[in-house]
């Protein structure tokens, strides 16, 4: 089961998901970065991920998901840019934070930039949770 941290997502317009996996962070890191493992849960990777390099994933050599490795701190933190066709060139970032906890690893995935900044200004994500009345209130706030 994954859990969406709704409050945080509303404030930052980032999608944040946390999951517990019953292995050490070093093992999770291998599954996030090694070509041999990535395809099992994500998309077939064209190569191992490596610090400072570009990456691409997709079946039969197709580039379905691609980006650049921005931060590389094994086995704690991995930050990548994330592009996918439907984003139409709008670049987003995906951050993985691995924290050792009793019996395993707390894995937090943060996907930032999925809603354009301008839309954030209009408090669109607020609307997702707070409902239309609150949304109208924030729009009135913009007008004043």
């Amino acid at each position, binding site marked *: 089961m994954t859990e969406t941290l709704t409050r945080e997502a509303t404030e930052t317009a980032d999608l944040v*998901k946390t999951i517990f996996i019953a292995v050490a962070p070093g093992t999770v890191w291998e*599954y996030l970065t090694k070509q041999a493992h990535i395809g099992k*849960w*994500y998309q077939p990777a064209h190569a191992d991920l490596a610090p400072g390099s570009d990456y691409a994933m997709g079946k039969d050599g197709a580039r379905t998901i691609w980006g650049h490795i921005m931060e590389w701190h094994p086995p704690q933190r991995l930050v990548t840019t994330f592009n996918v066709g439907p984003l*139409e060139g709008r670049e987003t970032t995906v951050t993985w934070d691995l924290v050792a906890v009793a019996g395993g690893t707390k894995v937090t995935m943060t996907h930032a930039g999925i*809603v354009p900044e301008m*839309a954030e200004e209009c408090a669109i994500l607020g*609307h997702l949770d707070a409902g239309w009345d609150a949304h109208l209130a924030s729009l*009135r706030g913009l007008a004043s």
Partner: protein
Amino acid sequence: MNQTAEATFRALADPTRRAIVALLAERDLTIGAVAENFDMTRPAVKKHLTILEQGALIQVEAKGRERINRLNPQGLQAVTDWVAQIDLFWSRRLDTLKDIIERETKND
């Protein structure tokens, strides 16, 4: 991203259009009434309203000779759907990641 969400984002990408949305959140307005609030020509305002309509953020209703612009509360649905789609994508990927790792390491 689906087409409507993209149109909605495009509609919101301009500060004048965001200001128009804020105005229409207060009350329904004719094109002329919207234009009074901005230092621009009526055709320029009409152009902005058309883009907002394409983004499903407003609805335009003909009332006699007037055209009344009104906010469309459903307009943000496309954006909501877009975020939900990404949410579901990651939920599935993360569930699979957990399953695969825990299954494979158990056998080590």
